[in-house]
């Protein structure tokens, strides 16, 4: 663990070397520089995990950085279990997607730049999660923003892609103004940017007045931007314009969870500011829980109406990030971070799997897919593992992590959040299986010749499927919870203890909640299968079972019953269809036409305002100054008429003036 500080530097070095030497030394094979470095980092992270589990001390190293008057800064790392977990996430997913990219990005334009920036991004995330002070953390945060911009806009020849990159950067930057202000407030309250110090001060109530709330709100605005929470989530679906491996790294597993990380790392600040632990009635509707829950639902609803496979996953990510955030908001720290951990793996798996599919079918539209199960078995089975994990089907990882969050919500008296979370779980299962059925089952509806992807790609998919399936067992509830025990930082532990936010024993309540979750998920899967599994879809059209012998008594009663049943089915069908079609389309419409319009309007308004300001500058202000010059000119010209050039006139003036002077002097004296 002591060499963690070296890892970001190595990745940055890899980036720089790739930029300068990949073409000359490695014939353009940029990955030869970056993959070994990230692989090494991954091994170090795994080793450190072992160290943490066996009780290694927290590592805190720093060097003097600079002194700016009101305080001084040190550049340092603070490696505790939480940081190690995050490092594992970063290095694993980065390694996976880089290996994947060797095949996926082969022959693509700017291959070298791609790998260099990915390495730089990895370094940025590493800096964020190991930083011991907010200032350095902001460095990592913004570096990732830069890399995200460059990678989303990788295919910038198409202006839509560069537009998406700008949208992503600007939306997160807008959130960042909250981050900066929050950091500034924390500094002035505590006297330092050091995270441990800030947490301690927050826990012990040393922030003056309402400043802690202001700071928490400000920081959370940054989180809303970076982690694509409602209402600043609109950049994430557009960010799918980048290459798919990028989406798996940045927009599923690492950058977007930076906000979640921030809340988790500065948890005492948020707990104290929003009274997370004292949830009673209306007081439980606080910013973090509210935003997280709304996001979870909005993401899920919007995923329903997408036909683009990547956009489905994007909205799914938004929804899952909502889960993580509200998990933190209801006091389930361990559960939320655990979900972050597992989500990274299965979401990356799903994205890379979608990449495999897209690569094979040359389209992202699921209406042009179908039947891929037969031609791409490895992609298919890893996809199923990922989907089951995402939907929260036991014993895949997602079940334990998501369920822990819901259980936490229930336990800490956030029942309304629990309800919304369960609805979200239903929707998640529903839309994921909709996608799965349309993509992999039935008959192929496209025009290409899809075939299984090569070993780089499928190898990575399989490697990610294993943790997606098995990681759940670290985070079992109650006393079996290894995750909390190993990775929860000291100060968080104190907060949790103080407020009793985690349930220690497994009771029947636990089983009941889990059962409800599973049931809901099963319902979702079932409904989706009924509606979308191609070979069953046709048999549910009402009236498809007509035949004569049921019309005559006494079977007419049976028939009516059947028909009743059918009516019920029709009713359910109508409701389901109404949710699937009208309600979700309505919310998507609101999303696109109203919220996104505001964002776009902000852009056009700024442009118009800019033009207006410039016009004022040129005509108004500058005109005034020019007017001064013109005025000087004119008055000069007006006075010219005195100069006639006539000598006698001059003489006359002289004489008259002299006479007057003379008279004046005589009179005075």
């Amino acid at each position, binding site marked *: 663990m002591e060499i963690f500080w070296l890892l970001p530097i190595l990745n940055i070095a890899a980036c720089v070397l790739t930029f300068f030497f990949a073409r000359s030394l490695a014939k353009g094979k940029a990955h030869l520089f970056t993959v070994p470095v990230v692989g090494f980092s991954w091994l170090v992270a795994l080793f450190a995990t072992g160290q943490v589990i066996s009780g290694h001390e927290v590592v805190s190293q720093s060097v003097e950085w*600079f002194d700016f008057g009101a305080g001084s800064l040190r550049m340092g790392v603070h490696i505790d279990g939480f940081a190690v977990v995050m490092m594992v996430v970063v290095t694993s997913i980065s390694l996976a997607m880089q290996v994947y990219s060797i095949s996926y990005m082969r022959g693509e334009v700017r291959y070298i730049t791609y790998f260099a920036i990915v390495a730089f991004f990895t370094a940025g995330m590493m800096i964020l999660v190991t930083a011991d002070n907010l200032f350095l953390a902001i460095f990592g945060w913004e570096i990732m923003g830069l890399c995200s911009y460059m990678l989303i806009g990788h295919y910038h020849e198409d202006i839509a892609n560069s537009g998406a990159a*700008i949208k992503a950067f600007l939306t997160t*930057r807008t959130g960042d103004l909250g981050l900066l*202000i929050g950091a500034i*407030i924390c500094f002035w309250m505590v006297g330092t940017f050091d995270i441990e110090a800030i947490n301690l001060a927050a826990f012990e109530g040393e922030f003056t007045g309402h400043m802690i709330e202001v700071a928490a709100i400000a920081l959370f605005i940054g989180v809303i931007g970076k982690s694509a929470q409602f209402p600043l989530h609109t950049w994430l679906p557009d960010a799918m314009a980048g290459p798919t491996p990028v989406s798996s790294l940045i927009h599923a597993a690492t950058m977007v969870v930076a906000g979640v990380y921030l809340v988790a790392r500065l948890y005492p600040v948020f707990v104290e500011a929003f009274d997370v632990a004292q949830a009673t009635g209306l007081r439980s509707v606080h910013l973090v829980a509210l935003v997280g829950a709304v996001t979870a639902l909005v993401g899920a609803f919007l995923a329903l109406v997408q036909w683009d496979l990547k956009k489905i996953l994007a909205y799914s990510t938004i929804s899952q990030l909502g889960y993580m955030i509200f998990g933190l908001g209801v006091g389930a720290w361990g559960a939320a971070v655990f979900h972050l951990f597992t989500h990274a793996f299965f979401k990356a798996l799903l994205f890379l799997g979608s990449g495999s599919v897209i690569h094979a079918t040359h389209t992202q539209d699921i209406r042009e897919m179908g039947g891929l199960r037969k031609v791409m078995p490895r992609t298919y089975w890893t996809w199923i593992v990922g989907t089951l994990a995402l939907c929260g089907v036991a014993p895949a990882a997602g079940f334990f992590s998501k369920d822990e969050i819901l259980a936490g919500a229930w336990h800490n008296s956030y029942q309304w959040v629990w309800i919304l979370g369960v609805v979200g779980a239903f929707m998640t299962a529903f839309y994921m299986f909709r996608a799965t059925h349309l993509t992999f089952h039935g008959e192929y509806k496209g025009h290409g010749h899809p075939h299984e992807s090569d070993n780089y790609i499928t190898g990575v998919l399989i490697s990610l499927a294993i943790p997606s399936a098995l990681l759940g067992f670290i985070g079992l509830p109650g006393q079996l919870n290894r995750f909390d025990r190993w990775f929860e930082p000291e100060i968080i532990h104190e907060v949790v203890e103080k407020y009793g936010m985690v349930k220690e024993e497994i009771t029947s309540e636990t089983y009941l909640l889990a059962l409800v979750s599973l049931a809901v998920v099963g319902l979702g899967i079932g409904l989706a299968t009924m509606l979308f599994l191609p070979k069953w879809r046709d048999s549910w059209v009402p009236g498809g079972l007509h035949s004569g012998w049921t019309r005559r008594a006494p079977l007419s009663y049976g028939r009516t019953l059947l028909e009743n049943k059918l009516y019920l089915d029709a009713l359910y069908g109508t409701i389901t269809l109404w949710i699937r079609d009208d309600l979700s389309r309505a919310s998507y419409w609101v999303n696109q036409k109203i919220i996104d319009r505001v964002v776009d309007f902000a852009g056009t308004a700024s442009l118009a305002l800019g033009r207006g300001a410039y016009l004022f500058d040129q005509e108004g202000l500058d005109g005034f100054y020019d007017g001064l010059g013109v005025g000087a000119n004119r008055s000069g010209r007006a006075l010219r008429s005195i100069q006639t050039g006539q000598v006698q006139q001059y003489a006359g003036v002289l004489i008259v003036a002299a006479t007057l002077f003379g008279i004046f002097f005589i009179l005075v004296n």
Partner: protein
Amino acid sequence: MEWFEDSALSIATFVPFIGALIMLVIPKEKEDWLKGFALAVSLTSLAVGIGILFQYDYGLSGLQFEVNVPWISAINTRYHVGIDGISLPLYALTLGIVVLCILYSWHHFPEPHNPKMFLILLLILETGMLGTFVALDLILFFVFFEIVLLPMYFLIGIWGGANRKYASIKFFLFTLFGSAFMLVSFIAMYFLSQPHTFDIVTLTEQGLDIARSTGIWVFTGLFLGFAIKVPMWPFHTWLPDAHTEAPTVGSVVLAAVLLKLGTYGFVRIGLPILPEAAATWAPWIGLLAVIGIIYGSLCCLAQTDFKRLIAFSSVGHMGFVMLGIATLTPTGINAAIFGMVAHGVVTGMLFFLAGSMHERYHTRDIPRLGGMINSIPRLAGVLVLISFASLGLPALAGFPGEFTSMLAAFEPAPGLDAAAFRVFLIVAAVGTVLTAGYMLYMLQRVAQGPIPSEWEGRRFHDINSFEYASWTPLIILTVALGVFPGIIFNVTNETVAPLFTGIFG
């Protein structure tokens, strides 16, 4: 090394001027002699400057390399020069920038081709700038301050763009107008001091025993002189024209150094000698500063001329510098000086890039440009890097100054309205978003995208060796300042902290 202590500053400051005089006798046909000589002269100054950097004691807070001899005793003004943590970074920046400018111009002298006059004017300009930063006597300061105007006027007026006559006269008269008031204030300070003195150090130490309203009037004169130079809103309108029409090297020097003369004047003269008046003015300065930030960014969004866009971005960046100064705290002033150096490096670099782009495309019109990443990838890469530095990305030069300015704004000096400054803080933060907006918008149109049909098939040469030579130090500095802000902060804080703690409020 006594002689070095005594004469280093004078040598470094006046060598360019003497070099210019010598160059007058070199015939103008011998261009290589002229260029080589000019480079040698500026390198000599730079070498002396590096000597100063090495000999400077970074642990001391007072003036070093001080020289104080009588000059014009009839008006009681002395030749008093010295350097401390406030002026050292700016002094070094000036020395470096001029060398880089001469290197850059080696094969790229603007039309009408007259390297002799061009270089002579540049060297005289250098002396003026250097002298301003080390002068410690008000009249001496004023002389150097004004020496800067004439070479710049000619540089813009003769070698500038299409609208150069208008731009050069506007620059000259506008700045002179402010300087006139500044001189009045200087004279007022002379007569208001007991005993009468023009010496800045003495004035700072003993202060002026005057009524508050008198101080405000005197400060107003100073404010006009310096604010026009910064430039602060609404006195900034000379800047876009001057920057756009000036030749590349002129724009670089203008952005990198000349703008700093104004802010330096605030820090050196305005704030220390008239702290009460400064405290009264501070909220207004802060207000104008943040208006400048937002206004500059908005106007940038509307620009189609690349150089004009960078010019307006300067208005925005100097807004951050002035916000830092307006907080009247050591943190804020440290931030301001950092911002000055960072802006000099980054925006100077941007103007170099603009010049190179103009030289290749023969246009500055953004709608006509495009696809640079595909046609000249290295130049585009540098443009992207420097643009991100300009928009204040952490780990690059722009961020520490901007962030520390905002940090200082949260807790201004006691006696100042903290609520107002916190509002300024929020507005400045919004400004960072707008800055990102126009920079990315510009990059999208200029660097990204396909190559426009107008330039299809044209092969542009990527960065050549002279450009590499003149840009590499700036690029390295951009990254270095971002990652190790201590390079500047550790130097300035030694001087700023004792000087500015406790004198306000």
